[in-house]
């Protein structure tokens, strides 16, 4: 058993962190967030140059064939640096293409940085349930026609192509009958409404009105998309866990520094035992969350779907609990400064809180953990 990173992994992380420290500081990010587009081409191009977009792509398509653990290392830095470019959305979307297995051209474009992706899976009223799909896919000549509306599509307006779930059979909440498609964003009938999210990112409402796609747009089997969706969602959740751990690391360090420097009653506030013990509790949360996030990344490709679901749900739960505790307490310990827009602390807190609500919150994943067969066993 070995918890150490490989040298190449460490190098990837170091390169990314160096760039963030140098060129993606708090003010730079602030300007990007408040710009019209909400993302920066310059920043994206740097991510491409650093090999980040090639990392998840198979070697055959010009990538580095990075594992979930490789991506875990990168996503931590993304979280630490509060990077708002559509990296997560693209890597997550690429996982669908990899699982589908017939999307070499698009993966090449992902690797080269030409193509950004977004996953249009959620719908109004579905909340965290990805099988709650009303969007319809119907047979349309040789291809398919898609109709419906997807909500809170992360970086939906910045993507060149969208991964879309649609129902080709079954009732509204059935896992059977769900089909997955990859749809170019400029396909007629795709209407994207871009907006800011409160954590400084972008999302969109994406409406599909009589959207005609060719047969080649189908990922996997018609009506048999659930297993792929479930696995890719786990992959996405494990990336978000890594991002959250990175954000927590940064927030924890900033809070510790604040406790050492901020004085009240003539002494650094870090000298007050009630605050010390709160920091100790935060430290324990952080390390426990880190352990679960590592385990989830390591088990992503274990080949046992129940074990994967168990561990990813456990990680999303534990990281969510830690995010809430560390986020809220870090703000509290920062006092008034913690609730202003002026310190990175508040932005880490906001990002962590929104990760909690993305791809299943604590209660959703507790329930999923409980639903796995192993939970009821007691011998």
């Amino acid at each position: 058993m070995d918890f150490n990173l490989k040298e190449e992994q460490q190098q990837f992380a170091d390169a990314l962190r160096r760039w963030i420290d140098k060129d993606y500081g708090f003010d730079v990010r602030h300007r990007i967030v408040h710009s019209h587009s909400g993302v920066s081409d310059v920043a994206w191009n740097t991510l491409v140059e650093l090999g980040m977009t090639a990392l998840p792509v198979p070697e055959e398509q010009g990538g580095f064939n990075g594992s979930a653990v490789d991506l875990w290392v990168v996503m931590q830095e993304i979280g630490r640096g509060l990077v708002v470019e559509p990296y997560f959305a693209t890597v997550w979307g690429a996982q669908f293409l990899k699982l589908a297995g017939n999307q070499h051209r698009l993966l090449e474009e992902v690797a080269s940085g030409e193509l950004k992706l977004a996953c249009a899976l959620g719908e109004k009223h579905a909340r965290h349930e990805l099988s709650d799909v009303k969007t319809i896919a119907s047979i349309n000549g040789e291809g398919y026609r898609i109709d419906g509306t997807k909500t809170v599509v992360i970086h939906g307006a910045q993507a060149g192509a969208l991964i879309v779930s649609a129902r080709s059979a079954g009732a509204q909440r059935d896992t059977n009958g769900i089909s997955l498609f990859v749809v170019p964003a400029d396909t007629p009938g795709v209407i994207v409404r871009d907006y800011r999210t409160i954590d400084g990112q972008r999302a969109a409402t994406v409406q599909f009105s009589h959207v005609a796609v060719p047969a080649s747009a189908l990922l996997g089997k018609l009506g048999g998309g659930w297993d792929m969706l479930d696995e890719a969602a786990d992959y996405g959740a494990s990336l978000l866990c890594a991002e959250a751990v990175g954000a927590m690391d940064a927030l924890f360090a900033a809070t510790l520094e604040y406790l050492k420097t901020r004085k009240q009653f003539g002494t650094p506030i870090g000298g007050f035992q009630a605050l010390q013990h709160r920091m100790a509790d935060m430290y324990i949360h952080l390390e426990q969350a880190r352990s679960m996030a590592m385990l989830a990344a390591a088990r992503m490709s274990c080949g046992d779907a129940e074990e994967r679901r168990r561990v990813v749900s456990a990680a999303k739960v534990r990281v969510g609990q830690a995010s809430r505790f560390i986020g809220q307490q870090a703000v509290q310990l920062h006092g008034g400064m913690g609730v202003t827009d002026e310190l990175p602390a508040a932005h880490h807190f906001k990002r962590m809180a929104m990760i909690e609500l993305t791809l299943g919150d604590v209660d959703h994943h507790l329930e999923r953990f409980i639903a796995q067969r192993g939970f009821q066993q007691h011998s």
Partner: protein
Amino acid sequence: MDLNYTAADLAFRDAARAFLDANLPGDLQKKVRNHLRLSRQDYVRWHQIVAKQGWAAPAWPVEYGGPGWSATQRHIWEEECARAGTPPILPFGVNMVAPVIMAFGNEAQKAHYLPRILSCEDWWCQGYSEPGSGSDLASLKTTAERSGDHYIVNGQKTWTTLAQHADMIFCLVRTDTTVRKQEGISFLLIDMKTPGITVRPIIMLDEDHEVNEVFFDNVKVPVQNLIGQENKGWTYAKYLLGHERTGIAAVGRSKRELLFLKKIASEHYKHGKPLLQDPVYAAKVASLEIELMALETTVLRVITRASHAPGPEASLLKVRGSEIQQQLTELMVEALGPDALPFDTVYLEGKADHAVTGDDAAAPLAGYYFNFRKTSIYGGSNEIQKNIITQMILGL
């Protein structure tokens, strides 16, 4: 022990409710209930409606224009305002500087300021905190040096709520640097239009402009703006801290927000059913509702005690009251799930009829959650409140 309102109390409640039904403008009520941002005009408009009725300062003595209500009646009025969803009557004038002027101001000050506070002709803000003095307020550094008929004020205040709208600020300033820190502080009233005052916005984490830094650069303040005696300001500040603090529990507001939470949780779904019917989620709501029932009873225990004004027990009300408010916002955001992410400042400012996603109820809630982290920080952080409980109640 009789835990029911008297018939007189109930009649008072009906009267309050009838007044609110008839006089609270629908557009203001909608803004408040839906967590939209209030303009200066919104606050002033409501204050003047209530002032016209003679109810703008429930705790004031009748001689100054108060309605002469009992503690229980004041509580009922607060409850009914919260229930209806009125804009708040801001405390800085009515509940903070006014009691100090009444207790320690001279007759000229009383005659000038109190009617203008009551009518909202003057908008007041509070100049207490400084960048280096939060919980340790007495360490403040802003100075006021006597020069003829004036004080010359230099320094900086911070966390000054809605100073951008204010006509007047009441400040704690240091008038003697040679003595123990509590003994060199004076209480000064300053016109915000005086040259040398600069207000810089502090943007909150929900991008709202709610608080400010206020800079004083050789600001000339007439000596007649001093309250009471020079260097006795700390005494007046402490008097104020002990004054009228049960409202801090925000029970009425939280009761309204609990209903809003239940509405949200009835309109968002889990497994195709309203989330409020999910056993795990419902248990969290129920637990919070029970905490709020308990707090309401605790508030009533405190205010119906004939003997004296709320003492250190107010710290209990502050701690639990702020935690309940925060948990309500947490559970709202949890109910929304991914729908909490969209952020639409145009809608929040009232400049669009609907939120960008079309979900008007959801749009303000994530910001509300983040913003309300302040409730356990301001007005004496919950850590300070626990220090007070430790010392004043437990004797540790």
